[in-house]
């Protein structure tokens, strides 16, 4: 640095220090608010519980509708919400499908349209699914109905979260 021309002019020095200090102060104000605003994206998802939904003895080869309720904590608001699963037995296997259409989220029903017996039917844009949840080509949905994680304990079916089949 000694004798060479490393001179910083008064104006440059002031520009650097004032921009630096100003930037630091602005960051100190903005960053907490930004982190505050994006918190929902960064919050760790809650571990989901398993809920008792049906008795194995009640299940048939035909999908049946079972509703189940649980306490949901939505920030400062707690309430009981009800979810639905379409459950059937396939030999020893138990299949529980979510009724949420994979097109845009309307609710599907089993065997609800006379023209399409033994299929899941969505009234919103006429999406259709096979019994195992596979979406039928030529209708709007682009993937099969989601499948609940299932567990059987003492003759009772417990469901976890609905997860994509593919």
């Amino acid at each position, binding site marked *: 640095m000694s004798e060479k021309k490393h001179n910083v002019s008064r104006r440059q020095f002031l520009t650097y220090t004032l921009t630096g200090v100003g930037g630091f102060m602005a960051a100190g*104000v903005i960053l*907490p*608010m930004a*982190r*505050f*605003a994006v*918190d929902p994206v960064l919050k760790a998802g809650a571990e989901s519980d398993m809920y008792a939904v049906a008795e194995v003895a009640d299940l048939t080869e035909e999908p049946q509708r079972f509703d189940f309720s649980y306490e949901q904590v939505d*920030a*400062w608001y707690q309430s009981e919400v009800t979810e639905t699963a379409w459950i059937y037995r396939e030999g020893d296997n138990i299949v529980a499908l979510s009724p949420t259409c994979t097109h845009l989220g309307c609710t599907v029903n089993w065997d609800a349209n006379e023209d399409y017996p033994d299929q899941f039917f969505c009234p919103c844009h006429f999406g259709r699914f096979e019994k195992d949840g596979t979406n039928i080509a030529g209708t709007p949905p682009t993937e099969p109905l989601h499948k609940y994680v299932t567990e059987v304990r003492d003759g009772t079916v417990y469901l976890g979260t609905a997860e994509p089949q593919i």
Partner: protein
Amino acid sequence: MLQRVYDWVDDRLDITPMWRDIADHEVPEHVNPAHHFSAFVYCFGGLTFFITVIQILSGMFLTMYYVPDIVNAYESVRYLQGEVAFGVIVRGMHHWGASLVIVMMFLHTLRVFFTGSYKKPRELNWVVGVLIFFVMLGLGFTGYLLPWDMKAYFATVVGLEIAESVPVVGELTKTLLAGDPEIIGAQTLTRFFAIHVFFLPGALLGLLAAHFIMIRKQGISGPL
């Protein structure tokens, strides 16, 4: 890089005169703390504005979580302060800023008073300043109710009783503010919220604009 972006825009829109007109002025010697340290008293107006900006920003962010409803208000404030990252900081900025802005405004007013800057031709700007002062008090009063805890509630009970004690129009004023002749409740909270986040900030921005345009037009007052 930044310089080239600036040049590109400036080339097309000629923005240099715009910001020069607003920001590029010689600082007179008597208001420059580098010349006379005591000139720091001229900073209080700017500091008031700085804190006002922080109030507006932190207030906007608080409304992302806050609900103006008597069932949920308290819980939402507790949630945003206790569960949301940096919630204590953002609420703290708004909470302490609300007091600090009054302090800064008071110091700024003292400086204007003791430098005699309210005299001709600046009388109107003193008037606008007093209006800003009342708007700030209004913001403090209406904001204080929003957390809907005991302190908030009874502060507002007292404030509204004071309003009611005004001769002739007192009762009317109180009902108008509280939204109900007797109850201080659901309608009071929604009204105070609307006044706090829309009406008064709107009025404040208008008054600040008038304040600054007048300063720009008249320049800073001369040395003592």
